[in-house]
C-alpha cells in the first residue's frame, strides 16, 4: 500500500521539527528516512503511525486520508506494523504472547493465532523461543520478536524506527541481512528510520535524507551516493570531504593548497564548496603535496589522512608501504559556498 505525505508540518512549542515535508511512497517500496538525530525523521514516522498528529498538511495511506489536522484516524485503525527503537517488548508477556497480541486485537481464533505466531516466529528464526520471557532474551532476539510482532498481522505498511541502533556491530550486520532477506519474502511497504547511512544504502529502494525538518534529497541509494544534491547529503552519506574555498581558473584553492579540478567539474571563478569522496582522490603522482597526518588500515584498502587547514582530508588507496604524500582530484562536485 502506498503512503502519501503532503506538506507535513509539526512543531513542538517553538521548535519546528518537520517543515513542509512531502513524500510519496509506492506500494511495496522501502523508503529510508536518513539523517542525524533531531532532523525530524522519527517525528515523520510517528506522524505516519498516528502516534503524533500533524499541524498542517495531509497524510494518506493508500487512498485513505488518515490525517489532515482535522480528520484523524487513530493508529490502531491504520493497519500498520511498527518496530520501536527500544523494542517495546512487553516485559510481562512471553514471546508468544507478545507476538499474538496484534492477532488477538483483530479477534482471530485461538488456533489461527497459534499457527500465525509460529509462522511469524519462524520467519525471524525464533520458533524455539516462544515460551521465553523477554528478560531471558538477548538484544538481537528482542529485536526479532519486535519484528515478528510487527509483521504477524500482515500490515499494509511496516514502520521501523532505528530498529538496529541498539545492537552491536556484528548483530547489526546480521539483522540487516535478515531484513534484506525478509524483503524478498514479505512484500510490505516499509518506512525505515535510521541515522546509519550503511543501513539506508543497503536496504532502501529510495532514501530521503533529512536535515532540520526538510528532505534534502529523495532518490535511490546509488543517486544519493553518487550525485548528492547538497553538501549536507554528500557529507552525511558516504562521509565525503567538504572543503570551503575558491575556484580560480580551473583550480580549487583552500587553506593555501591548490587542487586541479577535473574537466567536468569546471565552474566560474569565485567562492565555492568542494565535495570529494575519499575514494575519488588519487594518491601520489603529480597531485598537490600535503603532509600525511595518519594512516588507517581498513582491510580492503587503507585510509590516508592529510593535514589541511586545521583539519584533515581523507583519501583511500591501496596499502603501499610509503605513499607519495600528494593527492589529486579524480572526481568531485562543486556547490555554491555554504558560508
Amino acid at each position: 500500500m502506498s503512503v502519501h505525505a503532503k506538506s507535513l508540518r509539526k512543531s513542538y512549542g517553538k521548535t519546528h521539527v518537520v517543515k513542509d515535508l512531502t513524500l510519496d511512497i509506492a506500494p511495496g517500496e522501502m523508503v529510508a528516512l536518513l539523517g542525524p538525530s533531531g532532523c525530524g525523521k522519527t517525528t515523520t514516522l510517528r506522524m505516519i503511525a498516528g502516534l503524533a498528529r500533524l499541524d498542517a498538511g495531509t497524510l494518506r495511506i493508500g487512498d485513505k486520508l488518515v490525517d489532515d489536522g482535522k480528520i484523524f484516524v487513530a493508529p490502531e485503525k491504520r493497519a500498520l506494523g511498527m518496530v520501536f527503537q527500544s523494542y517495546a517488548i512487553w516485559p510481562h508477556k512471553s514471546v508468544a504472547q507478545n507476538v499474538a497480541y496484534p492477532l488477538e486485537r483483530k479477534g482471530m481464533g485461538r488456533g489461527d493465532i497459534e499457527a500465525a505466531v509460529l509462522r511469524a516466529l519462524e520467519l525471524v528464526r525464533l520458533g524455539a523461543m516462544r515460551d521465553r520471557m523477554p528478560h531471558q532474551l538477548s538484544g538481537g532476539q528482542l529485536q526479532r520478536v519486535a519484528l515478528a510482532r510487527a509483521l504477524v498481522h500482515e500490515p499494509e505498511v511496516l514502520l521501523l524506527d532505528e530498529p538496529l541502533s541498539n545492537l552491536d556491530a556484528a548483530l547489526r550486520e546480521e539483522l540487516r541481512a535478515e531484513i534484506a532477506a525478509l524483503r524478498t519474502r514479505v512484500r510490505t511497504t516499509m518506512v525505515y528510520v535510521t541515522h546509519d547511512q550503511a543501513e539506508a544504502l543497503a536496504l532502501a529502494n529510495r532514501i530521503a535524507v533529512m536535515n532540520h525538518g526538510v528532505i534534502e534529497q529523495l532518490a535511490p541509494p546509488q543517486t544519493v551516493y553518487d550525485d548528492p544534491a547538497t553538501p549536507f547529503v554528500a557529507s552525511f552519506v558516504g562521509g565525503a570531504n567538504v572543503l570551503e574555498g575558491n575556484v580560480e581558473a580551473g583550480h580549487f584553492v583552500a587553506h593555501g593548497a591548490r587542487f586541479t579540478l577535473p574537466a567536468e567539474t569546471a565552474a566560474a571563478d569565485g567562492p565555492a564548496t568542494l565535495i570529494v569522496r575519499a575514494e575519488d582522490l588519487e594518491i601520489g603522482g603529480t597531485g598537490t603535496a600535503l603532509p600525511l597526518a595518519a594512516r588507517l588500515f581498513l582491510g580492503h584498502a587503507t585510509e590516508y589522512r592529510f593535514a589541511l587547514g586545521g583539519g584533515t582530508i581523507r583519501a583511500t588507496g591501496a596499502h603501499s608501504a610509503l605513499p607519495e604524500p600528494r593527492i589529486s582530484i579524480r572526481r568531485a562536485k562543486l556547490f555554491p559556498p555554504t558560508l
Partner: protein
Amino acid sequence: MTRPDAITAAAVALAAVLVVFAVGPILALVSRGVADTNVLLGELRDPGARNAVWATLRTSLGATFVAVVLGVPIAFLLERTNLPARRMFALAFTSLIALPPFILGMGWIQLANPIAGYLNRHGAWVDIYGAPGIAFVTGTSGLPLVMLAAQAALARVDSSLEEAARMSGAGPLRAIRDATLPLVLPSIVSGALLVFLSASAAFGVPYMLGVATATPMHVLTTRIYTHLLKGGASGLAEASAASAILLVIAMLALAGSALAGRAGRVRLAAGKGVVVQRLDLGRWRLPITAAVALTAFVVVVLPLTAVVITSLMGNASLPIAFASFTTAHWHEVLFNGRTLSAALRSFLLASGAGVLVCVLGLAIGVTRVRISGRAAEQLALWPYAVPGTVVAMALLTIYSMDIRFVVANQVAFVLSLANSLAMVLLAYVAKYLAIGSRNVVDGMSQLDPTLAEAARLCGASPRRAFIDVVLPRLRAPLAATFVLTFLLCVTELTMSVLIAPPGRDLLGTLLFDLQSYADPASASVLACAVVMVVVAGLTLTSVGSRSRA
C-alpha cells in the same frame, strides 16, 4: 553464600534497630491480648466484634475502591496525557493528604449531614453518615497515596510499550489496560494496600461518621478505643486482642496484595532513559478536563470550602451569610506565639520523620531485595495497620520509664524517651514506616541489577555503586515517601496528643485543643493555615523541580 557487602550489612542493622525500637513495643502490646486466650476467644465470640470486623472490611475495601477508581485515572491523566493545568490538578489532589482526615470529616459533616448539611438544606440527597460515607471520606483522603504511587510507576514505564499496543490494533484504553497497567499494577496495589491499611486503622472519621450518629456502627478501631477507655488491665488486654484481629486483617491484605501485583513485578528496561510521550486527548480533552475538574471540586474544593466557611463563622448556630462572617478566629489562632512555635516544631519533626522513613525504607528495601528478607518488610506494616492510639499506647507502655543498660556496674546507658520529642519522632517513624518500605521495595524490585553491576565493574565500591546508580533511580519513590510522610506527620493528632511532651505543643495537639475545647471554627482556621502552607510548599517544590528539569 557470599559475604554481604557494607550496604547490605548496614541495611540489615538498620532494619533490626527498627524492629527493636518501633515494632517491638507493638508486638509486646499485642502479645498481651493474644497471650490470654480467654480474652482473645471472648473477643472472637463477641457478635459486636464480628460486626466490627465486617464493618471494617466494608469501609476499608470501600475506601480502597474509591481511592483506586479516582486515583489511578487521575495519575494517568496527569502523567501521560496533555490534560491542561496538570500541575494545578496534581497540587489540588495531593493537598488532600495535608488535610487531617478528621478535618475532612468535619467538612463533610457540615456539608452532608442528613439534617442540617449545607447540601441538604433543600431536600435530602446526600447522607455522609454510615459505611458508604466513611468509605468515601477515608477513600478521598487516601487518594493521593494511590495517585502518587501510580504516578511514580508511570514515570518508569516507557510509553513506547503502549504505542506498540496501539500499533498492534489496540484502542487507547485497551493499550493502557494491556501494556501499561500490568506494569504499574504493583505500585497501584501497593498504594491501594496503604489506603486499605490506613482506612482500617483510621479512627477519627469512623468515629465521627459511624459511631456518633443516630444509627451507630462500630469498626475495629472504635472498638479498640472503647476497650481502652474501659480502663484497667482488662481493657488493655481486650484492646490488644482487637488489635490482633486488625493485624490479622492487615497481614491478609498484604498477602492478597502480593498476589495481585505479582504479574507486573518484572524488571523494566535497564539503563535506557524512559521516553514519555503524552497522549493527545483530542476531542475528549474538554470533557475529560471537565470531569477531572468536577472530581477536584467535589473531593477537594467542597470540603475545604466547608472548612473555610466554618473558620469564618462567628458561631455555628448562625445562618451562613456574609454578616455572620468574622476574621476573629483567624486573628486569635494565627497571631499567637504558641501556634508559631508549634508549627515550627511540627515541621521539624515531620521533616525528620520524612528523612528517617526514607532511610529506613531504603534499609528495608535492600534487605528485601538483596537477601530476600521479608520479615522487616512485613513488620514495618504492623504499626501502620493499627490505630495511632495503639501505637502510642504501645510506646508509652515500654518507654514511659527510663531503660537502663548497666555496664560493669559503673556506667549506665540510659534510654530516656519519656516526655521527649524523640519519642514523638519515634512514633511518627514507626507509624508511617510502611510508606517508605512499600515505595522503596516497589521501586527496587523493578530496578535492573545490571545497573549496579555495571558501576561495580567501573571500579565503584558497593557503597559508591549504591549511591551513584541505585539511589538516583529511586529518586521518585523516595521523594514521594518524604512528601507523604511529612504531610501525614505534620498534622498527626492521635499519637501527638498522647505522647507530646508537656509545654511543647505540636500542630496536632493544638488542633485537638482547639477542636475539643475552643470551637470548630478555631480548629478550622489552623487546618486552613496548614493546608495553605503545604500547598505553598508543594507549589514551590514543583516550580523548583521544573526549573531544574
